[in-house]
């Protein structure tokens, strides 16, 4: 019969767009009986506005945001998408080798003071080295591309940036001091946690349970394809805007690293743990009114759908 339409809001130059593009090229959406409509946006927050305004049915965001919105009455829910989040990068030649070496430096932080990775890394630094990163250094919050550029120019000694910016930096002679998921594991997570995922409304899932199921199936198939086939990546090249082959390869590898391997149930357990840690550091300001991960944050076909 008629394929059901699913509108997904994505960042035009973001990794989600690569994945959906690969899905459509390989016809995996059609195979799953989906009519996928990709709505590109130019800004990080645009897709969130679009979901709120009903312009799209699904976006990619993180569980912290979902939990907080749920606590405030929204009915968003979450399915893991990737464990790649962000990394704290330093120049290859930098003398900084551990978080403990970061003292009196200038650190750029994309995502602002309430960024999850930043909070985890701060907590880790305090736990392992007893230093307060925010107090012992000059912290510069700013737009990710600007911070990347500033790091390249050497105005910043270290920069915490989203994963594809970090990957591009890696191609330009930077190395990872610590990644967000490493920090999470050192803080007690049992494995890499997918902190970003597909986000949609309970209502939508309830009205179109098949669409969600079909989409998740198609997505799994796409991830499988991208994990194994280099050829599939060649067609994505123009979308990725990689400056050179090296950047391209690093982006591809880091993407593959980020494919979630664990079951959602395991993820959820670790997430609950991390949530508590984050709630302790960030307080109500970060997590909103709920002291623990709000029930229903993780999509569970039956619970959310009914």
């Amino acid at each position, binding site marked *: 019969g008629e394929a059901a339409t699913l509108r997904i809001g994505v*960042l*035009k*130059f973001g990794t989600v767009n690569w994945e959906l593009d690969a899905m459509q090229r390989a016809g995996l959406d059609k195979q799953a009986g989906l009519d996928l409509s990709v*709505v*590109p*946006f*130019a*800004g990080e*927050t*645009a897709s969130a*506005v*679009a979901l*709120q*305004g*009903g*312009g*799209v049915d699904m976006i990619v965001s993180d569980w912290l945001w979902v939990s907080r919105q749920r606590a405030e009455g929204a009915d968003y829910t979450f399915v893991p998408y990737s464990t790649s989040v962000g990394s704290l990068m330093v120049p290859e030649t930098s003398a900084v080798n551990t978080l403990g070496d970061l003292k009196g430096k200038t650190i750029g932080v994309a995502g602002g003071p309430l960024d999850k990775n930043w909070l985890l890394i701060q907590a880790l630094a305090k736990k392992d080295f007893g230093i307060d990163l925010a107090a012992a250094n000059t912290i510069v919050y700013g*737009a*990710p*591309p600007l911070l*990347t*550029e500033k790091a390249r120019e050497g105005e910043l000694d270290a920069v915490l940036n989203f994963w594809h910016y970090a990957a591009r930096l890696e191609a330009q002679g930077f190395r990872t001091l610590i990644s967000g998921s490493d920090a999470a594991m050192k803080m007690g997570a049992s494995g890499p946690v997918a902190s970003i995922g597909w986000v949609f409304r309970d209502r939508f899932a309830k009205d179109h349970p098949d669409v969600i199921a079909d989409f998740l199936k198609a997505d799994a198939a796409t991830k499988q394809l991208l994990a194994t086939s280099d050829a599939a990546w060649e067609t994505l090249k123009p979308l990725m*805007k990689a400056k050179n082959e090296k950047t391209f390869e690093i982006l591809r590898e880091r993407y593959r690293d980020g494919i979630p391997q664990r079951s959602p149930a395991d993820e959820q357990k670790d997430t609950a743990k991390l949530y508590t840690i984050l709630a302790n550091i960030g307080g109500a300001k970060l997590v909103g009114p709920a002291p623990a991960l709000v029930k229903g944050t993780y999509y569970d076909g039956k619970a959310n759908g009914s």
Partner: protein
Amino acid sequence: MALEAPSLSAPSVISRLAPGLVTLASLAGLLALWWITATFADSRVLPTPPQVAAAFWRDAVSGEMEFHLAMTLMRVAAAFVIAMVIGSAIGIALGMNREANRFFDPWLILFLNLPALVVIVLAYIWFGLNEAAAIGAIAVNKIPNVVVTMREGARALDRDLDEMARVYRFSTVKTLRHVVLPQLQPYFAAASRSGISLIWKIALVVELLGRSNGVGFQINLYFQLFDVASILAYTLAFVAVMLIIEFALVQPFEAYSTRWRPKRA
């Protein structure tokens, strides 16, 4: 500082013959300045004219540039007309009516200082992610600025001419058209010029936050890649359109509508 002394006829004849030449020289000067700065700066952040031209050419040939430019121009034009009409009407009314002005002044200050972000997000969420919401949000951002400028103009209206119009029983429309609006022309010109630019800047934000096309959309994409050449290519394409409108439409119209002013020089 006395206003410039009247010059003798010779030089002003030259400049009257060749205003196009001056504009050309001006643009050439700008280009030279840019080229030199870019060459010396030698930074990825300030590309040279050929680099920008290449970026321009790439997107122009593919038709992308034209499409996005057309979308943005459509939004800018629609929001401009709405904002100027509504803003002028409110501004003139407030400038002429002290009591109303006293009451609405705080509202005006509020709307003037609402961040574009707030208005845009509210518009998208209430009215959906559609063109009407986008254009409406741009207009709402600009209206208070038009109001403020036109209100000053209305406050400075000449009382003598108004009295003349009252004595001779000019109708409201006649007074507005022949007495009030010509006096407001400079304010209108100021509000439109700075208005177009403000509207275009807000359009960029609107397109960033919820449209899938337009120059703002493209500029923000290229910003993520830190591709300044492409950003400048789109910017300059828009500026070029503005320059053409300015020199082909606005300035001839202004020269005509202010021909009554005693000439200086």
